[in-house]
């Protein structure tokens, strides 16, 4: 084959491949939104997501909107721009308090990322074992629980109804504040998301969890109080989208599910005692939407 023919052939291959690959390459371009400011957990997860997608071959544009208002503004101005963000039902409810609604629907739902289990803990110096903590439940008529304000009131109220006693939530702006609260005897117990930090805090004794099984001697709350309707309450993390057509969403979902099952993310989930998305395939989008509406 002459040099000229080879050149023509290569040119043809280049043209054909560029024409056929162009839509695929375009489909791989995505905006990853950071809907909360730098420094927090949500921002770090958004960064991790952007990094993972980049490694998978996506051309990622990392957009820092930092608030619900800015995110909504971005979508209003760019309705067709393909974008995704990692969201949780707790964060959704926090945003709702600002009258800023970013509702989850079947159309904008991409995939479930994880389920964060909640824990019931007490100050280790006061209740160093489950028996001691349980005796307080049996002996007193009223109990106080330190928690963050974004905990839906129904979660605490129905706990009181199941126990047949008055349960009052002592509210705090941040998780760290609420931990300080229970350690300083503002409240009898602490309730909130189980993280590596909470589980590793030796000042706290966590003895019950809202997951399906015992974790580190934390018994499932549903075994402790079968009548408690919210005994399995936790927070879902999920990917919400904007401007994605059905096909692109399908491909993206497959890629994301593979990403969340890989080393970095699975380590992240197991360290934080989270149930990863691949173990939650039986949970439909309806259940997550129901969770997001608990505060409405």
């Amino acid at each position, binding site marked *: 084959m002459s040099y000229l023919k080879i050149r023509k052939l290569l040119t043809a291959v280049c043209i054909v491949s560029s024409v056929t690959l162009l839509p695929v390459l375009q489909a791989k371009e995505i905006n990853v939104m950071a809907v909360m400011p730098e420094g*927090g957990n949500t921002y770090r997860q958004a960064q991790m997501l952007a990094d993972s997608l980049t490694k998978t071959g996506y051309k990622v544009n990392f957009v820092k909107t930092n608030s619900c208002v800015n995110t909504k503004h971005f979508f209003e101005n760019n309705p067709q721009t393909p974008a995704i963000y990692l969201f949780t039902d707790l964060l959704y409810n926090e945003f709702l308090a600002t009258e800023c609604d970013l509702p989850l629907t079947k159309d904008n739902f991409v995939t479930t990322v994880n389920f964060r289990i909640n824990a019931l803990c007490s100050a280790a110096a006061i209740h160093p074992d489950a028996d001691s903590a349980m005796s307080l439940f049996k002996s007193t008529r009223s109990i106080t629980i330190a928690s963050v304000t974004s905990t839906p009131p129904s979660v605490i109220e129905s706990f009181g109804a199941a126990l047949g006693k008055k349960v*009052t939530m002592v*509210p*705090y702006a941040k998780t*760290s504040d609420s931990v300080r*609260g229970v*350690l300083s005897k503002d409240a009898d117990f602490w309730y909130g998301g189980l993280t590596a930090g909470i589980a590793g805090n030796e000042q706290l004794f966590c003895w019950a969890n809202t997951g399906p099984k015992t974790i580190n001697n934390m018994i499932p709350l549903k075994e402790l109080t079968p009548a408690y309707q919210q005994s399995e309450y936790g927070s879902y993390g999920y990917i919400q989208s904007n401007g994605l057509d059905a096909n692109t969403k399908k491909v993206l979902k497959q890629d994301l599910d593979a990403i969340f099952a890989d080393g970095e993310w699975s380590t992240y989930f197991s360290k934080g005692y989270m149930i990863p998305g691949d173990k939650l395939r039986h949970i439909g989008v309806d259940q997550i939407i129901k969770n997001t509406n608990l505060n409405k």
Partner: protein
Amino acid sequence: MIDTVLIMLLGTLLGIMGGLLPGIGVTVTLLLAYPFIEGFDLIQMLVFYLAIVSASQYSGSVIATTMGIPGDSSSLPAVTEGHALFKRGLGQYAISGAAIGSTFGALVAVAIVFSIMPVAVTLIKSFYNNNVQLCVLIVSSALIIFTYGNKVQNLMLFLFGALLASIGISMVPYAVMWPDIVPYKTFPALYQGLPLFPVIVSLFVIPTIAGSWNTTFSNLPGVFDSTHQKITTHLAEYFKNISSSIRGSLIGSVCGLVPHVTTVLASNVSYIVEKKIGIRNKTYNHNGDSKSLIAAETANNSAGFVQLMPLLLLGVPITTSEAIILSMLEHNSFLVNYTTTIGSGLFNQLVLWFVAINFLAFLFAWPMAKHVQLLYKVPYRYIIAIIVATLFFMVWYLGARSHNEIYYLLTFAALAPVGYMLRNTNTIIIILAFVLQDKLLAAIVRASIIWTS
């Protein structure tokens, strides 16, 4: 070891730069440094953090004294007293006094922490009881309002600051505040609340600058006096105010434990107490008071160390920057609690590093005092013009970092005329009320729930 020394140097340099740039502070410096920190071990991360926190306090007082710009709310006394001393030609004494006081405060804080270590966990836990926090916040607010000046006017200024701070969403109670009055629908950004930096610039810096407009450096006493360069002169000047420094250390060591307002509360309460004592003893100088300045700066650095104790002992952060460093530590699988910090002996190492950091920051800050006189050669109005331009840029820049530049500039534009109108009042009270409002409200709400449960 050599790695940790280099990390200490890097942290100190970054801290000094962060303190020199208004509005940047510890949190932003730490976030900017995030990529460098990934591979550090536990002691290196904590040394790096301590270096940024401590060094920024030293350089923050330099910029506050010379330019009249507060790096953050803890530099407000340095702007009031340090800058007044600067305009009297005593800027070098103000800077050296603040630097020596800061080092002294750090050493006293270390001594206090060691002396209470056997009961530190119990003491700190008790301190975070809501009733105790409520008392501390009420006493601090009362000191701010009723210690000196026109008490009615102070109360009005405090209420004004608290009212401004209440705009937006309150976390405790969980509610949108003043929904019928504040136009949230028209300006949704108001849900976030008013941003602190434009509020400080418009309601504190603008009135301060307005009062300085007619200042000139000509014929100021002792501006180019060569005795200002002698270290013994500076030390002698500082030791005249040693009692103020001791009081500042003690106040700073207590206020440093108040969540979210640690160094801000420490420096301002210490300043107010010292000013009150000065007025009572008729020693307070209304044109720049060294004792009040040194007390505030000493308290600052005492609080800077003490604020770390809840994190190291209980694994619980009490400031935004501590929450960030904890998140970085947890991301790298480091657990922070009594066993890993105190029990392992890591705390003792950390104290030695902290002392070294303070001497290093002091050595960096000291030459700045020598070079202050160069500023006297620049016409004062030029300096003010540069300050205003810098602040305007920083308002824009800090807003742009969160896609809120228009909101930041509008907040500045709306409040700057108010600041100018209030130029003859003590607007530091507005800022302190702005910072304390949500803590005070949350403590009151929680107390009502706890008492009735």
